[in-house]
């Protein structure tokens, strides 16, 4: 068991070191969400917010916060394919560590990678005038962790079905981009036509975003028009989906590694 714990920490350590040594990626990870919140949230707020009595900056901030954590871990997991293409995965997979420990270590590592980005997003939101109590901040940290783990499990499920980095790069936009809108990162989704409602409900990111909003608005003074379900409901759905994604994803991934 100590062996597994050490392996998880070492795998996570490796991912974090990799981020620190890749300055371009570090900058890109941070700039992207800042543009979203600043440009999109700012413009929506300026044009619509005042007349509707709705704080679009807070809305976009919570959406982007959840999206960034979720997407960073999901896409980070796919770097396991990169390891396979660089022949490093054989070194990991020949070791006597359980496959779940490998996948979990990877998820933890990508969560660490997402953490500094999340910090920057929160600081940026504060600069834009979003006020947060200590309770809200704590809530965001805990819910953020859950979201990152959930993203990682989603990543492993996708990964189990892919063989090449190129396929992954081609497929990811199709899997992630629609979820931006179906999960309501920038757009309210309280009311949707039935077909979009169905698609929205099968988008994993929806529950992650809604959990963050639930936690954020619960502790603050802002009205909460955006929250769809109580945090405990979202958390329950995410926990169940996490378990399924992990088991199915790990099994698929291991099978695709060995059955060549």
């Amino acid at each position, binding site marked *: 068991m100590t062996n597994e714990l*050490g392996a998880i920490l*070492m795998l996570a350590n*490796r991912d974090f070191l*990799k981020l620190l040594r890749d300055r371009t990626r570090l900058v890109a990870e941070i700039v992207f969400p800042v543009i979203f919140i600043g440009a999109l949230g700012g413009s929506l707020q300026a044009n619509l917010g005042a007349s509707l009595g709705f704080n679009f900056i807070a809305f976009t901030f919570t959406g982007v916060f959840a999206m960034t954590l979720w997407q960073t871990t999901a896409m980070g997991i796919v770097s396991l394919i990169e390891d396979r293409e660089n022949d*490093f995965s*054989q*070194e990991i997979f020949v070791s006597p560590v359980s496959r779940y420990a490998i996948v979990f270590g990877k998820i933890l590592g990508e969560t660490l990678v997402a953490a500094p980005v999340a910090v920057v997003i929160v600081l940026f939101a504060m600069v834009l005038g979003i006020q947060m109590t200590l309770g809200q901040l704590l809530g965001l940290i805990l819910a953020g962790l859950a979201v990152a783990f959930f993203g990682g499990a989603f990543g492993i499920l996708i990964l189990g079905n892919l063989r090449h980095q190129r396929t992954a790069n081609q497929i990811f936009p199709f899997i992630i981009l629609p979820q931006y809108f179906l999960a309501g990162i920038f757009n309210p989704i309280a009311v949707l036509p039935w077909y979009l409602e169905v698609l929205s409900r099968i988008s994993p990111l929806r529950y992650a975003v809604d959990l963050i909003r639930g936690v954020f608005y619960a502790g603050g003074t802002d009205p909460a028009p955006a929250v769809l379900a109580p945090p405990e409901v979202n958390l329950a759905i995410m926990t169940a989906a996490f378990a399924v994604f992990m088991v199915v994803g790990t099994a698929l991934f291991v099978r695709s590694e*060995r*059955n060549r």
Partner: protein
Amino acid sequence: MKRVIEVESLVKRYHGAETDAVKGISFSVRQGEFFTLLGPNGAGKTTTISILTTTLSPTGGSARVAGFDCRTQQSEVRRRVGIIFQKRSLDQNLTAEENVRFHTVLYGMFPWRPAFRLMPKAYRERVGELAGILGIGAEMGKPVRTLSGGMQRKLEIVRSLMHRPLVLFLDEPTAGLDPQSRRNLWEYLRDSRERSGTTVFLTTHYIDEAEDCDHVCIINNGRIVAEGSPHDVKAALTAQYLLVDAHDRAGLREELRSRGVAFRETPLFRIELDGMSAHQVLRSIETPLTVVQTHAPSLEDEYLEIVGKVAE
């Protein structure tokens, strides 16, 4: 002595391939033995090693390491083996030492610590010792991507020797090494085998690397074509014989039979020398000969002939 590897009728066909990469091979390796799987590129060596180290599923047959099935008892097998892969498998973003640390923590040898100086003393000493033997002590703190190919190979060797495996698999380990490092590696492996009794399973396409081993299997095109001690294999492969012929073939046949000389008609008369000298045999034949050829190939000649058959 106990058998540590048992392979039976092992078959592997890759997805989408039309033929088997490994075609029902069987062999066994005894504990402490230095075993060599010798063959040209594409013969099925890496496929066999991948199955034995559980990173690849076999299509048919069975493979066991230390009594554990490579298909169903993977973690038991993994705990007991170490491997140097043919393709370089280092994390280019980490330093040399971090790659070694990664390995030892994954194998549960040492607890995880975020920095080298925080790692246990035993770890630091062993890294220092092995890196010294391979001559890369000064490179251990550098990022792997700044090291030359040969240096990276040495680093992989250091890494694989950190945990003392029951069976050490070496998949063409000397590819890309200079002669000096190659010699150091073999010397170190010999010493470490004597000290710890590690079984070494080597694949190579260099015939001279197979000469010092205890047991060699020559694999070609997915099949084992010769097996035994290097001496036996050499004897079998480099059989010396005479080819003779005469106008009076019936007379020659009769004479050879009457003198008790074993021969085959191929259609020339092939006489196995089996320790006799060609001169001795020729002197005893009275029938006038029209053809006399001696056949005494080197091991390398024979090996190249086997290898050449694939190319055709």
